[in-house]
């Protein structure tokens, strides 16, 4: 929860004079573009355009049109697209990398297949793809008679070969195949080129290879160099087959072994970490619980504290900056819960750094929670904090005994001095709503009282 500090100043990043260098950095971070990755949803071919559009913050269609236009420049757009396809990771690959950095519980559940893929991939609009291809072809045709033009004797083989390459590459791109397979129920005729079984793959590769060969032959025949090339080609083919026969199996096995070894090492490290953590925390608590079995209240407190600790370890980001408001509030609530044995539920929206005024809010909230834990008799306390731009607002609520606000005795220093006066001294405000039998809610704000 503490890992996102951008919420604090995403409103006023356009001020003419930045307050400090740190502020500038933070506001730059607030607009940081998402990492460039091929998108699995809404894509037409390889997800390159969609990914690029998200990265640059523009419409996917304009990126696609740019690629189509560039394609006319001697096929530059196509080559650029293919290069980006090969060298850019798919967003799901990025996501898988991120799983390793996820909180332990989430990562473990993901690895065990207990969470599943949450977002279903949406296929893009096939009509748009057709339109873009036509656009590219149209431009090529239009430039026919200019210096940028491409002759038909070159273009037709190129298109044939391109189609063959697409067929084969789809086989290599696993995600692409899954996506096509999902379309099959709507279009049974696609099954031959999308099926996941072996025969279909072989047919697909053979068809792709055949189309490429036809394209190459057509090109060479068009250039009148077919015979000479075939002779040279034969020699090359023989050499390649020889090399594959000698080195192939060996390379393949080495690759598999390396992969297996790496996996094993990661797993054993994870097991060691997990065992260490369980020993440090859970085992200790279990031992304490056995010793205190006669005292139900302390057993509950111990169990609750252990639960909170484990929960934080399993499901929350470890790399939260400790100086943030939300992190400090969570920690303060945890301390009060430990001291008074009343569960405190903390919900925060947004986050920002601590300054004097916010620290005052934090301390007043702590005081309010302590009061609730001590005097209200409620069996749980809710704290809700909202950070909006510069301003912080915190609500501390219990459903306990309540009291008459107008008759707070002067000796109840907690409420008067620690909460209301503290907030007013720092330029904020505090309001207390309570009635006997209806619980209490304390509202703390960094804004001056508007009422």
């Amino acid at each position, binding site marked *: 929860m503490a890992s*996102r500090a951008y*919420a604090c100043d*995403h409103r006023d990043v356009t001020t003419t004079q930045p307050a400090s260098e740190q502020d500038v950095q933070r506001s730059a971070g607030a607009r940081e573009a*998402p990492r460039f990755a091929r998108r699995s949803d809404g894509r037409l071919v390889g997800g390159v355009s969609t990914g690029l559009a998200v990265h640059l913050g523009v419409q996917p269609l304009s990126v696609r049109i740019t690629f189509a236009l560039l394609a006319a420049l001697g096929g530059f757009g196509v080559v650029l697209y293919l290069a980006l396809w090969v060298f850019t990771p798919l*967003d*799901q690959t*990025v*996501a898988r990398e*991120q*799983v390793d950095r*996820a*909180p332990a*519980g*989430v990562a473990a*559940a993901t690895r*065990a*297949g*207990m*969470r*599943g*893929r*949450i*977002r*279903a991939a949406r296929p893009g609009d096939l009509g748009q793809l057709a339109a873009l291809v036509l656009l590219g072809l149209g431009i090529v045709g239009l430039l026919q008679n200019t210096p940028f033009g491409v002759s038909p004797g070159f273009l037709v083989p190129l298109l044939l070969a391109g189609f063959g390459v697409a067929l084969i590459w789809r086989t290599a791109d696993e995600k692409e195949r899954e996506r096509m397979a999902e379309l099959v129920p709507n279009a049974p005729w696609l099954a031959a080129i999308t099926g996941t079984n072996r025969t279909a793959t072989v047919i697909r590769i053979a068809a792709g290879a055949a189309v490429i060969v036809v394209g190459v032959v057509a090109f060479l025949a068009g250039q009148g160099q077919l015979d000479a090339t075939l002779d040279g080609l034969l020699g090359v083919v023989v050499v390649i087959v020889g090399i594959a026969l000698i080195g192939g199996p060996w390379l393949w096995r080495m690759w598999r072994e390396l992969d297996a070894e790496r996996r094993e090492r990661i797993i054993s490290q994870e097991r060691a970490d997990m065992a260490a953590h369980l020993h440090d925390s859970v085992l200790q608590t279990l031992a304490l619980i056995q010793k205190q079995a006669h005292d139900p209240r302390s057993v509950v407190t111990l169990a609750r504290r252990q*639960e909170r600790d484990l*929960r934080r370890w*399993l*499901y*929350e980001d470890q790399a939260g900056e400790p100086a943030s408001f939300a992190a400090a509030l969570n920690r303060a609530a945890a301390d009060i819960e430990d001291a008074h044995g009343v569960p405190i*539920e903390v*919900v*925060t*929206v*947004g986050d920002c750094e601590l300054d004097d005024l916010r620290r005052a809010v934090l301390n007043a909230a702590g005081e309010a929670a302590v009061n609730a834990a001590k005097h209200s008799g409620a069996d749980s306390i*809710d704290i*809700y904090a*909202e950070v*909006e731009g510069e301003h912080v607002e915190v*609500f501390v*609520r219990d*459903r306990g005994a309540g009291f008459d606000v107008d008759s707070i005795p002067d000796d109840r220093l907690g409420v008067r001095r620690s909460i209301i006066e503290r907030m007013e001294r720092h330029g904020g405000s505090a309001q207390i709503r309570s009635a006997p039998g209806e619980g209490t*809610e304390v509202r703390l704000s960094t804004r001056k009282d508007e009422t």
Partner: protein
Amino acid sequence: MTEQTPIRVVLVDDHAMFRTGVRAELRDSVQIVGEAADAQQAIAVVLETQPDVVLLDVHLPGGGGAEVLRQVHPKAPDVRFLALSVSDAAEDVIGTIRAGARGYVTKSITGHDLVAAIKRVADGDAVFSPRLAGFVLDAFAGGEAPSVDDDLDRLTQREREVLRLIARGYAYKEIAKELFISVKTVETHVSAVLRKLQLSNRYELTRWATDRRLV
């Protein structure tokens, strides 16, 4: 309380001990018509028994609760799901709701509250815990819809107020009193937020989720 027919519930969780505990807690209030311990079993049991409500664990062998939601939802749209999980990671909470669950509660919920949540989901309403409300406010932060138009990407002023009160720990009845509206209206607002959460493709929502590693 005059109930004609008890609510029919299927219990899905991979821990047998937890199922036993919940079954004991719910015995008097609902009719448990089936149990399942993994995703495939859950899909089969739910499709066979057609219960009113499925209590669904989020972390489940065989693809998780999301997988069950994805497979059952198109075939049995009348079956409603209440997610029940020990995890309160943002990506699990929001992910399960976006997959089609009508509510999310943590396993530490008391038996009484759980029964209330089941009844609410069976009636077609949504169940938002304070934490879920906080996540939604966070995800939809910035920008309010100017009016009550059918804008999926923004929360109206009123929806925001309702969510804020839920996050502050108010029950629906208390929210109704606070805002001078009926409980039914509160439920309508919460259902509207649920719909937006499930259908919105808002860029910020995606980015918020990605920040919290929901992909």
